[in-house]
């Protein structure tokens, strides 16, 4: 009956958020996602209170890593037996499980918290656009992406390209083929496999 009761329910009910991981850095995304998992975005947040929300992340297959990180960023593991150390590059981990890198990033972000397992259970990761219907029905808000999704030149229409202003004027008598690379149709002795095997 009481209005206070439903207001309290509204404050403490868990909201479901959705996050599109397409072309997003997993570590920066984890920074933002764990904010919502812990409930840090709420004015009623307290570290001993349990006010975190659910986060549904999709397109984790299409995350972007910075520079050379796909090759150089490693995941380590030790079985605690002698010689049990192993490591794997990010791209190898990503091949095995496309949700693994984002999950580990969030997990590491929550390190030192007693309720880390509880919070991680409220993180729902999906490699692509296919989200189960019963989960999608719960969602009521979207988390802003951390980075701009870049657009490829192929994705622009010819109209877009034409209407974009020219930055400079080319000289009248410039030959466009002057720097053209030679297209070697003859087999090359340095690159040809046949030559190397000979």
């Amino acid at each position, binding site marked *: 009956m009481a209005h206070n009761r439903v*207001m309290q329910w509204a404050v403490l009910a868990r909201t479901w958020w959705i996050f599109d991981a397409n072309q997003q850095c997993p570590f920066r995304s984890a920074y933002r996602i764990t904010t919502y998992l812990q409930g840090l975005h709420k004015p009623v947040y307290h570290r001993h209170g349990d006010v975190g929300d659910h986060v549904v992340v999709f397109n984790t297959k299409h995350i972007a890593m910075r520079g050379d990180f796909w090759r150089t960023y490693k995941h380590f593991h030790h079985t605690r037996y002698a010689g049990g150390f192993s490591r794997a590059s990010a791209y190898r981990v990503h091949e095995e499980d496309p949700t693994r890198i984002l999950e580990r990033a969030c997990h590491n972000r929550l390190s030192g918290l007693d309720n880390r397992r509880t919070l991680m259970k409220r993180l729902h990761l999906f490699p692509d656009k296919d989200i189960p219907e019963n989960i999608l029905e719960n969602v*009521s808000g979207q988390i802003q992406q951390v980075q701009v999704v870049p657009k490829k030149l192929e994705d622009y229409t010819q109209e877009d390209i034409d209407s974009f202003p020219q930055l400079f004027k080319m000289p009248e008598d410039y030959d466009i083929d002057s720097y053209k690379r030679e297209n070697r149709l003859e087999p090359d002795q340095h690159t040809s496999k046949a030559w190397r095997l000979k």
Partner: protein
Amino acid sequence: MAASMASKLFRAGARSTIRKVSLFSNGLLQKGPRRNYDRHRMRYLKEMYQKRLDAGPEKPRRRSEWINWNYDAEIYAFGQRLGEEFEESTLRQAFINRSYVEGEKKKRAELGIDIDAVPLQLDDNTEFANEGSVLMSSYLKVYLRNIYPYMFEEGISAAHDYLTTDEMLAHISKHIGCEDLILSEEFPTSSATLSTTFKAVVGALFSDKGRERAEQFVRDFVLPQLIETDINELWQIVNPMGLLKAVLVLSGKGEPEPRLLWKSGANTIMSLYWVGIYSDKDFIAKSPGETILIAEEMAAREAIKKIMKTEDSRAPLVLGAAAENLKLDYERVNVSAEDIIRKYYGSEDPQKNTSTSL
């Protein structure tokens, strides 16, 4: 000389033993390690504890049974404490309960004193209580009607009933110190007696200082009980959507239209829905709820609160120094919800009664 020496020695010895007992018997203040083991201490303490349990709780006793009780001084202090100047005789009468008068008569009869020959100069507080009760209840209603001019009459009566229950008045009476002063046969004092005494105090003030002063007394001690209570909670509306519909239609607006504004976690146990109520595409109120039905009902209650202008953001009650220059309209009567419902549902076709909810 010798005697005085002996007495001094004795006193010193007694003091030293007392000190010894008080400081070292519990073993807490002992500086060094204890070198003995007192085998009897635990047995002794257990015995004392059991005796305390066997004796049971302390019997409640009147304050007047203690030796330092001075009724005259307490009666004087009562008025001074509250900042009111009572006449002593009226105040004394206000604390005399009917049972006390009857008890006194009985005692005299037992002693064989003829009451007609030596009349008992005691009047009980029934008359004061009746006067005080009428004044208090009329002032409470007038005050609430003027503070909440758009609230329905039923809500005003509910708040009035909440303030004038025996429990509430007994609570006030106990905390301004009437309990010790009451002259009554029964003990411990019941809440009915306490509340009657409080009403009698108001009545006594009315007869001493007039209406205005008595009303101020009511404002200062009864109305503050509404602080931190939600006045909308006191009136239980059975069918809020039906009432809202009647009010809106009679005031020339469209029928209320509930709309789902927001929902989250629909498939979970902690689902949340926000329902808003619109009339003629104008937003009126919104409210959350764990199901759509609850949210809709709460939104209707919110809408009624907005119509009554008693929403959560309402101004606080005008009390204390701010209420000194309050101009109250004593003739005012608020709109009754029952009239509205009768007007809307009673007159025309009875089908309207069924279509009150979604």
